[in-house]
């Protein structure tokens, strides 16, 4: 039932990544989860090996791969059952804004560092009072001579502590229509007036340094405007397709891993003689197989540069809901052992619960689907 065709080169890439995950990531997960952050040195190691931004062109230091490389990164990170090292937020969500909308100067300045891991990126959209309703944001950017002055607070920002560069959405307070007043800015770590909070305590993604970002009279040069002024909302919307797609890809690999682990566990316990267990596994296996075909089809269409906003929204809703349901159900089958953190599905349950909330809640996905399909 596989749709995606991986080349020899893809498979060699995956094999190298697999070894990296086994030796450099998996042994350290517990420590990083306790520390609530993954050291920056790991990002640089990933960069050295070509695992960051794998589809950036060679002229910016990339390896010139395609989106299938990103799919394989998601697959291997899912195999590690670990969500702290959220490289896909950097490689497939934030850096594409720079690549798509940056000036040649910005591209040359930032992209090579994004590939090597010297520059870790984050995107600042969500605010304490502005989540699903992005247009209600309060972070302002005011022109002043040859700079913009930024004020406001962003929250739930992934890579928020580690980030060296933020793609920041801010609004022009003078603008009449908020949808036409949002612009994107590149804010470097260390800029005066830009400070970061501590990693937030969360249900899962324990070693992902999700944090608040504070901007207080933060002055950035005008050349750090990304794309054209007032076009921020459009740019964000345009790039959300890939963001949501990579969420689906990751969710499906987590589903597969959980089911595989649960089957093994039940088998070893001799619990497969339970008809209820067999039916539950069959139902989950069916849903995962159907979901995988859809996810792979989305990847294929996306790689053909098709606009698949509705289909991607459907995928994001379906797969992130599925990963949650699979985790809940596997835990039920596993029983008492599932109540211990030693059980890998316990972590997947905690980690996967955010996926139907971030990158656009599933409520927003349903509004998008309805708006484009049923109105």
């Amino acid at each position: 039932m596989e749709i995606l065709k991986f080349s020899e080169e893809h498979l060699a890439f995956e094999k190298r990544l697999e070894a990296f995950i086994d030796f450099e990531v998996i042994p350290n997960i517990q420590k990083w989860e306790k520390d609530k952050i993954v050291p920056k040195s790991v990002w640089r190691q990933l960069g050295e090996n070509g695992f960051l931004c794998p589809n950036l062109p060679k002229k910016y230091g990339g390896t010139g791969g395609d989106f299938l490389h990103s799919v394989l990164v998601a697959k291997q990170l899912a195999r590690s059952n670990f969500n702290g090292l959220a490289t896909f937020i950097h490689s497939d969500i934030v850096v594409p804004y720079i690549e798509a909308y940056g000036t040649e100067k910005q591209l040359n300045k930032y992209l090579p560092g994004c590939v090597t891991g010297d520059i870790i990126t984050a995107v600042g959209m969500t605010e304490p009072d502005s989540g699903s309703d992005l247009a209600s944001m309060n972070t302002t950017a005011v022109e002043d001579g040859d700079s913009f002055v930024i004020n406001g607070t962003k929250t739930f920002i992934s890579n928020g502590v580690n980030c060296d560069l933020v793609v920041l959405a801010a609004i022009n307070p003078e603008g009449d229509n908020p949808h036409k007043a949002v612009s994107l800015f590149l804010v470097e770590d260390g800029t005066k007036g830009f400070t970061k909070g501590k990693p937030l305590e969360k249900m899962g993604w324990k070693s992902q340094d999700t944090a608040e970002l504070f901007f207080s009279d933060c002055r950035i040069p005008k050349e750090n405007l990304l794309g054209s002024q007032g076009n921020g909302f459009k740019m964000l919307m345009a790039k959300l397709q890939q963001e949501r797609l990579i969420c689906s890809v990751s969710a499906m690999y987590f589903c597969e891993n959980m089911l595989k682990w649960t089957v093994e566990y039940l088998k070893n316990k001799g619990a497969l003689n339970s008809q209820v267990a067999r039916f539950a596994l069959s139902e989950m296996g069916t849903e995962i197989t159907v979901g995988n075909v859809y996810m792979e089809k989305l990847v294929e269409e996306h790689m053909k540069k098709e606009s698949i906003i509705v289909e991607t929204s459907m995928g994001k809703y379906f797969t992130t809901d599925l990963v949650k349901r699979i985790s809940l159900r596997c835990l039920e089958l596993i029983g008492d052992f599932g109540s211990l953190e030693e059980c890998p599905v316990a972590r997947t349950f905690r980690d996967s619960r955010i996926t139907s909330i971030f990158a656009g809640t599933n409520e927003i996905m349903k509004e998008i689907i309805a708006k484009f399909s049923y109105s």
Partner: protein
Amino acid sequence: MELNLTRSQKEIQKAATTFAKGEFDKDLALNLDKKGRFPEEIWKKAAELGLVGIHIDGDKELSLVDSVIVAQSLCAVDSGIGSSILSTTSGAELLFMDGDENFRSKYLVPLLTGDKVCSFAYLESEKNLQSTNTRAYLQDGVVTLSGSKLYVVNAEIADYFIILCLISLKEEPSENLSLIVVDKNTDGINIRPLGEKLGFRMNPVANVDFSEAKIPAANILTFNCESKLKKYLAIDHILKASVAIGIAKGAFLRALEYTKLRKQFGTAIAGFQVTKHKIADMDTQIQTANLLTFQAAQNIENGNYDDLPSAQALLTASKAAVYVCDEAVQLMGGYGYMAEYDVERFYRDAKALEITYPSCSALKDIIANKVIGKIK
């Protein structure tokens, strides 16, 4: 919806809620959950107020509804601290039902006064209690106990265990499923902690091994305990259901408050039709579970220990708790995922309650056996 509570039950409800709101510090709860520590001081205060084992008041029958009310009230304010307080009397009803004056004064009273913690160690297989392999033999007034118990909640903080085991007498070769009280400082006990937990992190859990532990024969609580055990499990299911309902209520109230305050697209999100209907579903499930649980508790107060209503109450309540907490997290969005906003912890606790013994599958077996009866 208000149930028909008696005046004294209403007073208990008020006292428990007032106590919990006054004592269950939010930062403390976050910290205890993070570090996996038991809320010792608050437990002692709860016992001083008479909230620990409130249904065991010396009368002939248990006033179980009182504990249903206390469990719900405490857990709604904080699922972790609330359930920890309730966990300290695990097995106490067995001491009440079968213990003579000696047992009661030595082992039951210290639980109610908050001086000691008891842990009922029964599980050896995750599936049922029928596979007990922990064995003991009685000789010259001493019981020698060997075997292992799994997932013993509070093993590390307990002062004594009630152990489900097979006891054989010298003169009687057949083995009796029995209960024996074992002090923790007895030689031959090895406690193996099971590490971090998904939920109920304030209550450490461990496997406990007994290797030729010597216990005075006077500590045998019940010979041939099968019918007593069944009664106990009916009580235990109702208390667990009450914890689940408390968790659900706590998450529900937090989400409800949030949706009324949180404004997006120019309106409180409680105004959206889908949010409204979610809230309707959440409240309906809580009320349904509540009714079943109260009815099951009243049955027991009337001396009817039928295990069908208690299993149905627990099945409904634990499913409701997972559902309600899951929706609470979703309604609260990113905040729902943050420890500071509590509901993620309630959700983990609800899920842990649902998957640990007795699992939904075990409860459905009890229910199905009763409903279907004998097949010709």
